């Protein structure tokens, strides 16, 4: 891939159909005129027309950006409009992850609002679980969804597929249903069960991750035990590897895949779903913006919260050090306000100088060991959920002579100096700011911290405001003032701040001449070597994750990213959850983000936690590992390898025991066990070998294998 920093004036369509562009390659200062087959334009996001409609209906005026403006700190609330909440792209420019987060946060705000009005929550329909009938010979009913004749299904011959499946041993009836997700689907399943009295059900539909819960409920109502129901992505599975499938090819391949699913289902053991009582207490780790906000969100709904902070005071990095941000927020004032609310809230117990050492258990019944760093005392806490909001701090660097001169400092230090008057902007003649110091490079922080470009622009504007005669240069690799923050980049340029691009292989050099820094660099536009004596060299060092994350991740059995932040289970669809249910994530412990995103995540994490805390018990689908005692030699290798501490050796009974609440069914024990004594229910060797056999038996002819 070749990245060229140049905008073109236009694209010309040549008679031969090629697309012609002329551009300047700034690296070589040469012009190129080139033909392309395809030109792809990145056109960004724009508000959609229907926003206008909603603004009118809801009497919430659109601002000049074409959006309904959120509250100052909360993206989902609207100032002066209680009971009306925003989510998704109506609140601004969003990616999938933020849209999902905002949906959860808005749902939480709506629930809080209704609760305050005394409206009861909606009770979930209770559906009795039919018996599993696992001792009977497998009799599989197959339901194939046509997905309402969606184009995705076009070309799949349902008749042929049904016939192929009907011939399989153990298959009772195969039924093609128009739309399983609609009411007719429910009737069809009832009918299917009534006709065949099958004991297992295989459903082929679209997007199982979206419909799994609904389809399982439908199946249960019809009479199928939910652990005996498998749902697979019919269209995804069928199209694999076939670029332009003919009907016959596609149907054949689908039949092969479905046969493997059939084998898997036939050997599936029944799983017991048992209710577990919920401890309605929440543990929030980290007393910064995210932690305090999440704690208050839960406490306001009557949930007892324990808020643990490792420092001697609440507020976190932002609350203690940042007075104003470039977009007009006042974090320190906000922190003061939150602190007051936290201390006043009778549902919140604050633990200062406190760290979480260990944690065991699972959703509804965690037990965590808290250690007080000042007194050295320990205490144990029982809680139903935990929210990790440990925050982050300004990055460290040794680059550009940092530490050798007082004139080389970080943006955080400059901000503080300007605020308390230790640095007089009036005396500054030349200020050089260097972005990405120690960031976005193989050594050090490999990521972009997202907030430092704005931080630098904020400081630079402050200097220019007090001393318009000062020359401020910002050396950057890419200006990351994404979204509506672009306006501050524009404002900075209009104030005369000079932006100077540099590349990783030609960083500016800072030398000290008689204590004063001299910056040597190449101007990328003129390709000219330049130097500039600077009164201050200010480094944007980005954001480092907390060191303590590693220990905490170990204590909770969750993982960190390679960069040391907590890793969510899915970056797009489950941005604030861990694989382990009952643990949630908010704020800069997750990744580096601006304050309003922190608040959004905190709201969402609290809501996610509350969905469990609002009930009395939780139904766990017990996909856990088990021990076949007769095969076990008590070597305890499984105990050592279990990342969740779910396995233990019981000395008295001389056997390995599994804590079903802690087990996350990762299967490490099954892999480690030399005797096949450890097994995850529903993933037995017998089952998997049958699936492999089914796939090998029905291998397509060699010519069609890719």
């Amino acid at each position, binding site marked *: 891939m070749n990245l060229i920093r140049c905008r073109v004036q236009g694209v010309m369509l040549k008679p031969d159909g090629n697309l012609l562009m002329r551009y300047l390659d700034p690296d070589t200062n040469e012009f190129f005129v080139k033909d392309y087959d395809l030109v792809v334009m990145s056109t960004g996001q724009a508000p959609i027309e229907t926003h206008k409609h909603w603004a009118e209906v809801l009497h919430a005026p659109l601002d000049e950006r074409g959006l309904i403006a959120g509250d100052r700190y909360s993206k989902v609330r609207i100032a002066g409009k209680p009971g009306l909440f925003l989510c998704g792209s109506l609140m601004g420019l969003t990616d999938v992850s933020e849209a999902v987060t905002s949906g959860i946060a808005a749902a939480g705000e709506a629930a809080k609002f209704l609760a305050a009005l005394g409206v009861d929550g909606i009770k979930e329909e209770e559906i009795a679980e039919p018996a599993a009938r696992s001792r009977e010979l497998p009799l599989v009913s197959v339901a194939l969804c046509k997905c309402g004749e969606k184009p995705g299904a076009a070309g799949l011959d349902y008749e042929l597929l049904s016939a192929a499946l009907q011939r399989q041993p153990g298959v009772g009836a195969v039924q093609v249903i128009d739309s399983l997700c609609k009411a007719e689907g429910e009737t069809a399943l009832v009918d299917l069960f009534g006709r065949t009295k099958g004991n297992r059900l295989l459903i082929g539909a679209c997007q199982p991750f979206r419909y799994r819960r609904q389809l399982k409920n439908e199946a249960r109502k019809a009479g199928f035990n939910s652990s005996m129901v498998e749902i697979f992505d019919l269209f995804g599975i069928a199209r694999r590897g076939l670029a332009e499938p003919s009907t016959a090819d596609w149907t054949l391949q689908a039949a092969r895949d479905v046969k493997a699913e059939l084998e898997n289902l036939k050997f599936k053991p029944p799983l017991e779903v048992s209710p577990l009582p919920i401890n309605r207490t929440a543990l929030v780790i980290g007393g910064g913006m995210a932690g305090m906000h999440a704690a208050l969100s839960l406490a306001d709904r009557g949930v007892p919260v324990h808020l643990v902070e490792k420092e001697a005071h609440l507020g976190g990095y932002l609350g203690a050090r940042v007075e104003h941000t470039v977009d007009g927020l006042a974090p320190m004032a906000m922190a003061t306000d939150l602190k007051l609310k936290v201390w006043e809230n009778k549902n919140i117990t604050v633990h200062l100088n406190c760290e979480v050492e260990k944690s065991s258990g699972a959703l509804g019944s965690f037990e965590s060991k808290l250690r007080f760093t000042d007194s050295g005392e320990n205490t144990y806490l029982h809680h139903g959920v935990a929210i990790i909001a440990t925050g982050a701090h300004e990055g460290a660097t040794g680059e550009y002579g940092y530490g050798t001169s007082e004139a080389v400092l970080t943006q955080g230090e400059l901000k503080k100096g300007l605020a308390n008057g230790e640095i007089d902007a009036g005396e500054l003649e030349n200020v050089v700011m260097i972005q990405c110091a120690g960031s976005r490079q193989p050594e050090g922080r490999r990521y972009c911290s997202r907030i430092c470009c704005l931080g630098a622009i904020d400081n630079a504007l402050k200097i220019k405001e007090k001393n318009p*005669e000062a020359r401020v240069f910002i050396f950057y690799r890419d200006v990351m003032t994404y979204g509506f923050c672009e306006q501050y980049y524009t404002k900075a*340029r209009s104030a005369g701040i*000079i932006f100077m691009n540099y590349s990783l292989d030609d960083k500016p050099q800072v030398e000290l001449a008689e204590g004063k820094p001299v910056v040597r660099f190449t101007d990328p536009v*003129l390709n000219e070597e330049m130097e*500039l004596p600077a009164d201050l060299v200010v480094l944007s060092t980005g954001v480092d994750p907390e060191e303590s994350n590693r220990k905490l991740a170990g204590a909770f059995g969750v993982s960190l990213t390679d960069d040391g932040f907590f890793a969510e289970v899915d970056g797009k669809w489950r941005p604030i959850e861990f694989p382990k249910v009952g643990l949630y994530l908010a704020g800069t412990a997750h990744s580096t983000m601006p304050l309003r995103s922190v608040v959004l995540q905190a709201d969402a994490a609290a809501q996610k936690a509350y969905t469990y805390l609002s009930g009395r018990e939780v139904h766990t689908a017990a996909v856990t590992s088990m021990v076949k005692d007769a095969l076990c030699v008590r070597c305890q290798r499984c105990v050592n390898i279990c990342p969740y501490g779910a396995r233990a050796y019981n000395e008295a009974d001389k056997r390995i025991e599994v804590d079903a609440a802690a087990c996350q069914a990762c299967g490490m024990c099954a892999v480690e066990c030399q005797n096949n004594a450890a097994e995850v229910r529903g993933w037995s060797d017998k089952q998997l070998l049958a699936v492999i056999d089914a796939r090998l038996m029905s291998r397509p002819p060699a010519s069609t294998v890719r």
Partner: protein
Amino acid sequence: MDLQEGSIKDLWKDIYPTGNLHYCFNCSTCISGCPASHGDPPLLVRNLARKVILGLEEELLEDNTPWACVSCSRCEEMCPMNVMPFEMILSIRQWQCRNDETLIPPAIVEIYKRGYTQAVGVNTELRESLGLPQLNTITNNPEQLELFREMLMKTQIVSDNDYMFKG
């Protein structure tokens, strides 16, 4: 070069004091389709803007390329930041003349020699190969060109500097 010693901080106020220039973020839209960027040396509008912003007075005074602009205004239309680069080029020309009374812009010499600042009417063979009619230009019409030169000689700037134009 030493930016502290070798540049004038507020040079832009002298040259193009509208403030528009500050919005430039060096995207090079102005040059990617500029007809004068084909010249030798090329006219690089973005680089001129940069020299003004950085206050590189000497380099700007010696720079002949602003005179190569053909006034097509494409840069002005395409500039995403509304810097109005064509206006800037005119301003640089004026500033150069203000600062150097002896400056005889190369463009005027070109006008005297060819009748145009630009190479209009030189690509006769290319036009012919493309089946285009020949342009009726003053360059192709020596009698008219001679009259045009006489007319130019009556202007002060040319007559004062006639040594530049003759021979």
